[in-house]
């Protein structure tokens, strides 16, 4: 469980995040949604400690993040960031094995058990056949899957993903998010696509103008009355076969 209270961050004089509370519960997928520039990625970075909020605090399973060493943090929180490291000469296998680093001491080398874990994680994202390939030679979608495999290889109790469906075709968008759900770990996902959020997130936090506009179960947050003013677009909501769908219409803007 990750729980954060009263977080804030500013770039220069402009506050991007201002007094935000977030709770990610065990076994549930929390989606961070909001328009461009609403601070989704900043909030995610505050959660895993890449940015230190000057106010409030973040705790992981009850321990304040600043009290954990970077390695301890990496064993509790695995993150898929948007930085791909495309220029590296590493193979896919080496890239995924990097995820084992937080579990190895300085003088310890990755062993058979680590190879097993790395291979299993590659298989889970459907990228086992890429193990021997150069990471730099992969397509955007293949890279993203390998980076997710690396995060899985960290075997952390929490998984954070910053727009993991970027660069992925429709099938892999669903496969990746389905996988995140199936993991059953406490996950936080930054998502642009509200329909994906509707389908794969248990809870949502809607950000707008540096504040939390709405937070709660996905079905409650994805209310056209809440979303329309934040996104500035007309929204219709359909419930088909128990799944929620959103349709957008620029002309019907409120």
């Amino acid at each position, binding site marked *: 469980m990750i729980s954060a209270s009263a977080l804030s961050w500013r770039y220069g004089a402009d506050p991007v995040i201002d007094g935000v509370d977030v709770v990610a519960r065990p076994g549930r997928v929390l989606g961070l949604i909001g328009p461009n520039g609403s601070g989704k990625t900043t909030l995610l970075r505050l959660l895993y400690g890449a940015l230190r909020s000057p106010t409030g605090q973040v705790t992981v399973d009850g321990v304040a993040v600043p009290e954990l060493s970077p390695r301890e943090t990496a064993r509790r929180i695995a993150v898929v960031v948007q930085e791909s490291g495309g220029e590296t000469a590493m193979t896919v296998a080496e890239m995924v094995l990097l995820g084992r680093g937080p579990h190895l001491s300085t003088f310890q080398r990755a062993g058979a058990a680590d190879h097993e874990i790395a291979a299993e994680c*590659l298989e889970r994202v459907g990228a086992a056949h890429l193990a021997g390939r150069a990471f730099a030679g992969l397509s955007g979608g293949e890279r993203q899957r390998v980076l997710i495999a690396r995060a899985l290889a960290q075997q952390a109790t929490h998984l954070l993903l910053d727009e993991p469906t970027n660069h992925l075709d429709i099938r892999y968008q669903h496969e990746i998010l389905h996988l995140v759900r199936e993991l059953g770990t406490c996950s936080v996902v930054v998502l642009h696509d509200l329909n994906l959020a509707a389908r794969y997130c248990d809870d949502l936090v809607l950000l707008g103008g540096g504040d939390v506009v709405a937070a709660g179960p996905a079905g409650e947050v994805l209310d056209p009355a809440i979303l329309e003013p934040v996104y500035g677009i007309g929204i219709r909501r359909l419930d088909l076969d128990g799944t929620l769908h959103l349709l957008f219409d620029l002309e019907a803007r409120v």
Partner: protein
Amino acid sequence: MFGNNHQGVAVAEVYVAQRRRTTLWVVGLVAGVVATGVIAVGTGAIGIGPGTVARILGHQLLGFPSEVTWTPPQEAIVWQVRLPRVLLGMLVGAGLAVCGVALQAMVRNVLADPYLLGINSGASSGAAAAILFGAGAGFGQYALSASAFLGALAASLLVFLVARSGGRVTSMRLLLSGVAVGYALYALTSFLIFASGSAEGSRSVMFWLLGSLGLARWDALLAVAALVIGGTAAYLTVSGRRLDALAVGDETAHTLGVSPDRFRMRLLVVVSLCVGVLVSAAGSIGFVGLVVPHLARRVVGATHARVVPVAALLGAILLVWADVVARVLLAPQEIPIGIITALLGAPFLLILIRRLHATGA
């Protein structure tokens, strides 16, 4: 489904294949270093056969063979003159190569080399002050090296202070401050040469700037170089996994439990010290630190725990051969070694650029 591990073999296979390849290269390169040493010690104005060289070295180091079958001048040339020079060459080559590896990871730029941080410019200013104005005379026979080292230290401190902001050193700030400090100190060196008005002195400074192993002797300097360069190579090898993470990106390093700012700061201290010692011992020898890391990555892949030792061995071999060429090409006159490494390195760099372009397309 996850239990089926024919894929598990794949990752392990990739890993084992790379490790076997590395082991083969390391064994081959160690043999290469030994052979290079024996041949290089025997080569020069007076040629001495490899067999004789091996016997003299064996006699000196192990007391075997105990029977002396060579002349005293031969022994003096091998033991007193050429061996320290070849050893210094190996150390400097290895040091430049591993510092190049570290810097390319630190700033994530394939064109980074050990002189990127302006440390050599600082050392040059120190050396010029010593040669032209007798600075550091209190250090006796070490006046030149000591003065160069102080210059290097001052330059790295300056780079460090400029690049550091809010307890962080980002790669961009590091690059920019290195270049700025480098230019400023280069200007200072030129000014010192100009102000001294001594043609002989400026020739000595020029010679030093292009690098030379001519100062090599069995002295404290050689011991310090061995200690610092050995320590740096060991530290970088052990830090291999953290270098891997840093080379991918700061954000990635952070999520893998490596604090990029703290680690980069530590690397900066280690590399500055090592480059300072290198430059004070042998002047600025270009291209080795830039080119050798690329060669090493070509043969053993991108994992730094493998790249660092392989680069060290490759650098050692390369620099000693460059020195042999420098000694014999215009014998008895000696060419600054930096000219040789630049002549060899520049075409290599062009090939590299073509390759990069080809794979980028």
